[in-house]
């Protein structure tokens, strides 16, 4: 049906099943640039805030109003700021930071607000890690979720497109409804426990929980650096006998990069199953459906009851490092020891 629609409408930019997840593919193809106003038919469209774009998910009615008219109504959101400082400890990632924020401030902290992530920590992390933050920000209710507008963004986008763009920075005296200060210097890996993203515990309180499945992928954490982090932990190791580890690269580009660099080989040799790129097991789209009573550690962004299969299953959210370490040990495991 979608292929017929594309042909009938003469749409030039169509990315079929082989390409991967929208929130990875669009940036890779150079569609997301600073200063843009973007809507998408997927809630995690906030991801493009990492590229300094005002970007949000909408429902189908608004989506096709925009499609026909090229414009849309917006209620101007209040802005809030998370100022993040300190050096992330070894094998603690931006995923742990955003889960920590969910736990400390609840999943409603940013309802219909525009987030700006600022501070030295944000400046020092990769674009991929910033995408994780902007992606997960939707789970906090965010309308938009901007990363740091800096040269790193410019360099990344210029590699993907020749179209002109200009960074948009806030005025020094811009008004924010709230500013939250977060020091990550001593941050433990964080886990969103069943069945809400803001049911957060430090890993020391959850470690030892036996798992049946480990899922590494999704628009939150299915990028090359995520697979690379897992491969470092799983290098010359064997995944626990009682665990199926499913790795789903976020895009064809990530998939190929992992294949060429040897990361795929490392993961396969450790016992992981690598699927074609896409959303995969994140919402039960492809493989990895959980049975009653099963437990999964997942690098995705939602752990709602029944999302990955049985309503009697449990999903725990963590970083790619935590997923890999847990797959190795057969139980939720602190990755800082690897």
């Amino acid at each position, binding site marked *: 049906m979608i292929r017929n629609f594309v042909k009938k409408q003469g749409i030039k930019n169509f990315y079929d099943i082989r390409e991967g997840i929208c929130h990875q593919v669009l940036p890779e193809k150079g569609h997301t640039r600073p200063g843009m106003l973007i809507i998408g038919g997927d809630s995690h469209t906030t991801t493009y805030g990492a590229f*300094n774009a005002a970007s949000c998910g909408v429902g189908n009615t608004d989506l096709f109003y925009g499609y026909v008219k090229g414009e849309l109504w917006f209620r101007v959101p209040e802005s809030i700021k998370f100022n993040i400082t300190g050096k992330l400890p070894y094998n603690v990632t931006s995923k742990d930071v955003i889960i920590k924020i969910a736990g400390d401030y609840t999943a409603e902290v940013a309802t219909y607000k525009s987030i700006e992530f600022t501070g030295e920590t944000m400046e020092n992390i990769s674009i991929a890690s910033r995408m994780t933050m902007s992606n997960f920000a939707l789970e906090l209710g965010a309308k938009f979720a901007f990363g740091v507008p800096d040269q790193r963004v410019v360099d990344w986008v210029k590699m993907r497109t020749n179209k002109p763009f200009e960074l948009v920075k806030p005025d020094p005296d811009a008004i924010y409804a709230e500013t939250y200060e977060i020091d990550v210097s001593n941050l433990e890996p964080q886990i969103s426990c069943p069945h809400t993203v803001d049911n957060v515990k430090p890993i020391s309180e959850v470690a030892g929980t036996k798992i049946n499945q480990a899922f590494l992928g999704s628009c939150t954490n299915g990028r090359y650096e995520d697979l690379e982090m897992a491969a470092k932990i799983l290098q010359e190791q064997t995944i626990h006998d009682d665990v199926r580890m499913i790795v789903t690269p976020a895009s064809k580009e990530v998939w190929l990069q992992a294949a060429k660099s040897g990361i795929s080989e490392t993961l396969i040799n450790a016992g992981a199953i690598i699927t074609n790129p896409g959303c995969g097991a994140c919402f039960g789209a492809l493989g990895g459906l959980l049975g009653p009573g099963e437990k999964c550690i997942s690098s995705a962004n939602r752990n709602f009851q029944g999302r990955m299969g049985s309503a009697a299953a449990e999903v725990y959210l963590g970083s790619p490092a935590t997923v890999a370490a847990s797959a190795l040990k057969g139980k939720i495991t602190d990755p800082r020891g690897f």
Partner: protein
Amino acid sequence: MSSKTIAEKILASHSLSGTDFKPGDIINAKLDLIMSHIGTGKVVLDF
């Protein structure tokens, strides 16, 4: 024009009314890009 956050600046540059606004106001804004997907197929209108 008052001082603005990133969101306010981008919305201001796309606003079709041309008047200043504050948080809570409703505006119409020109879109740069629309993404739709069905399953794993993605349609992108890059205006």
